[in-house]
């Protein structure tokens, strides 16, 4: 196990894509300290910015390198980008593009995460015990290839456009979500336990969004389908209803499903006349 501790409080963005189990596994402490990392526009070595400690695990089954980061790394970007296996545990806040395009393994964060966490991820799991920023699981600017698989669990709130352009996989948010959750999503599941800001599911063509709290308004381009008692979130997890089921977004000829908890949204009852 490799333990990284920030040697100072960072001011400039740190481009830390080398903090990745695939890169660090099998390297000695000295080798890791020499790895290149960018601080602002200056190339540095990991050893200059982080205190690196090494505790080799005795369990032969755990050959995959596990990394733990202790402290605030909210300026460090692209941690765990492209990772294929292994585990990263972060005890503190972490910066943008966490686990970008990750293909496997697990990242656990005991703190808040900045925007673009799990951007375009293909597989693996990200568990966030604090809040997440905007564009959770969404692709970079101008790209329409969102999350292709894997799982993101957020115990706090998320910003805008969580799960934009999502193609597959699941995002579970146990707090509230910002605007445009599931924007242009094509498939997959997004579950929000609490409230969501308006424009949920805008331009979605397929997939499922479940909102367990208050939703101020449903877009005019959605049509009501029915009222459901229960909704399946994933294997062994069911959300208890009743839920209004809206279909949309019709402006994109979509048939995505938007479930909105009935009891907390009495202002949507006027849709019932179309049932």
């Amino acid at each position, binding site marked *: 196990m490799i333990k990284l501790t920030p040697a100072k409080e960072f*001011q*400039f*963005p740190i*481009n830390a894509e080398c903090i990745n189990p695939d890169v660090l596994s099998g390297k000695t402490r000295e080798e890791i300290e020499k790895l290149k990392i*960018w*601080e*602002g*526009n*200056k190339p540095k070595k990991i050893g200059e910015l982080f205190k690196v400690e090494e505790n080799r695990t005795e369990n032969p089954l755990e050959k995959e390198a596990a990394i733990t980061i202790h402290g605030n790394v909210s*300026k460090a*970007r692209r941690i765990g980008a492209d990772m294929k296996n292994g585990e990263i545990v972060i005890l503190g806040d972490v910066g*943008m593009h966490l686990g970008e395009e990750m293909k496997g393994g697990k990242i656990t964060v005991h703190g808040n995460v900045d*925007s*673009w966490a799990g951007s375009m991820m293909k597989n693996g799991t990200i568990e966030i015990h604090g809040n997440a920023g*905007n*564009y959770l699981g969404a692709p*970079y*600017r*101008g790209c*329409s290839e969102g999350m292709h698989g894997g799982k993101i669990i957020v115990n706090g709130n998320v910003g805008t456009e969580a799960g934009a352009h999502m193609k597959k996989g699941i995002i579970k948010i146990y707090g509230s979500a910002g*605007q*445009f959750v599931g*924007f242009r999503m094509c498939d997959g599941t997004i579950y929000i336990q609490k409230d969501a800001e*308006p*424009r949920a599911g*805008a*331009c979605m063509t397929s997939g499922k969004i479940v909102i367990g709290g208050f939703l101020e*308004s449903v*877009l*005019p*381009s959605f*049509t*009501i389908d029915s009222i459901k008692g229960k909704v399946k979130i994933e294997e062994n997890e069911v959300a208890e209803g009743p839920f209004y089921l809206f279909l949309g*977004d*019709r*402006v994109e000829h979509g048939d995505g499903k938007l479930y909105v908890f009935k009891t907390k949204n009495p202002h949507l009852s*006027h*849709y019932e006349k*179309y049932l």
Partner: protein
Amino acid sequence: MPVVKAVTCPVCGSLCDDIELTIQEGKVVKVKNGCAMCESKFLGYNGEHRILKPLIRKNGEFVKTSVKEAVKRAAEILAEANYPVLYGWSSTNCEATRVGIELAEEVGGVIDNTSVICHGPSILSVQDVGIPSCTLGQIRHRADLVIYWGSDPWSAHPRHIERYTAFSQGRFENSAWRGYLTKIKASQVRKKIESAVRRVFLKEAPSIPPLIRREPPPSIFREGRKLVIIDVRRTRSAQMADYFIQVEPNRDYELLQAFRALIRDEELEVDQVAGVPVEYLEEVADVMIRCNFGVLFFGVGLTMSSGKLRNIDAALSLIRDLNMRTKFVIMPMRGHFNVTGANTVSTWQTGYPYAVDFSLGYPRYNPGETSVVDVLLRKESDAALVIASDPVANFPRKAVEHLVKNPLIVIDPHMNATAQMADVVFPSAFVGIEACGTAYRMDHVPLPLKKVVEPPRGVLTDEEILRRILSEVKKMRKKRQVEVAA
């Protein structure tokens, strides 16, 4: 007295190129054809706030210095910085922006132009959806339905309506200026009477008027040019329009999506959208489909209200949908005279239109991460160069606090709010008055800017100042490399 004809006006994105200036003893004394903003700039640019000497801050006070000394200090600041930002660029010429990008690459900084606080979201959506657009000349000659959304051209682009849309006499579409002007005059008289009655007889305090809910009048179904305004308040432009839709603030996205659904012949399961009854929207959608050549101009009212880039995403998609039924184009109402040029040069040089980060040695682009306001709000930068812009007056307070805390270089003809907080100030020549160059109109047509008078003695152009800083930075870096090697 010499008269210079066909001068391009360096004020707004309309870039009117028919201005006639009378020059007397090296000064502009008369402006013909220009709007109020144009006249004010050409006649008043040389006012009391003009800076004539480079300034350096020493012990908290500005000290006049030589250009050489100021260039050296500026180069030191930029060469030593770990994450400098270079911001502005929209009110200077393309030639200066080109040098600026080279400087940003040399110092490994973030270069961003003012689109980040105006039409940046439009650019993001254009990259997502694409843009069906054309030149303003096409619109002048052919457009029979003109829609302005979240934009008040009468006040912000005063000659836009006259030169390119409703008031212009096109080859295939006639001008309707008489009718529109009568309307605006009548509306002003009515307003004055209402206000007098309220103040004198009813003794009421002014209040916010209720939302205007008016059925589309028969005139919007007629043949010929029609003007529709969609905005949150009844602007000057709205007063003369054939039809005005008052949208509830921050509900533009819903309205756009409703239009998209209606154009696809979908039925809406709501009675009103954004406060507008659906039957009115159906009629407007009908007008959109029935026109021969429609155009949607959108302003900052759409890009900077709730939804931001996704509002534009919906607007662009609406135009895409409309093009299945008729001919429709869309164009952003760009503000600064060369903001389009700043985007164009940046795209040509780096591949990206704004918010380009050179810190890793190659251009990276991700607005939200590399855009200057976000960099400042996260307190990441450690130096800044501001050119032809005034972020201290416009940026969020927290961003300004960080901007002025670090070394700040300003290149500007005027002592604006940012220059007052700077460490190094360069006076520069006014582009389009004292310096020539190229600027891009809002429809991406490049136009030449003329030099009509000489700049004050010793005052250099933006391009020349940047070139000197760049060459000084290169010299310093080379020296440092030699030292490290030794």
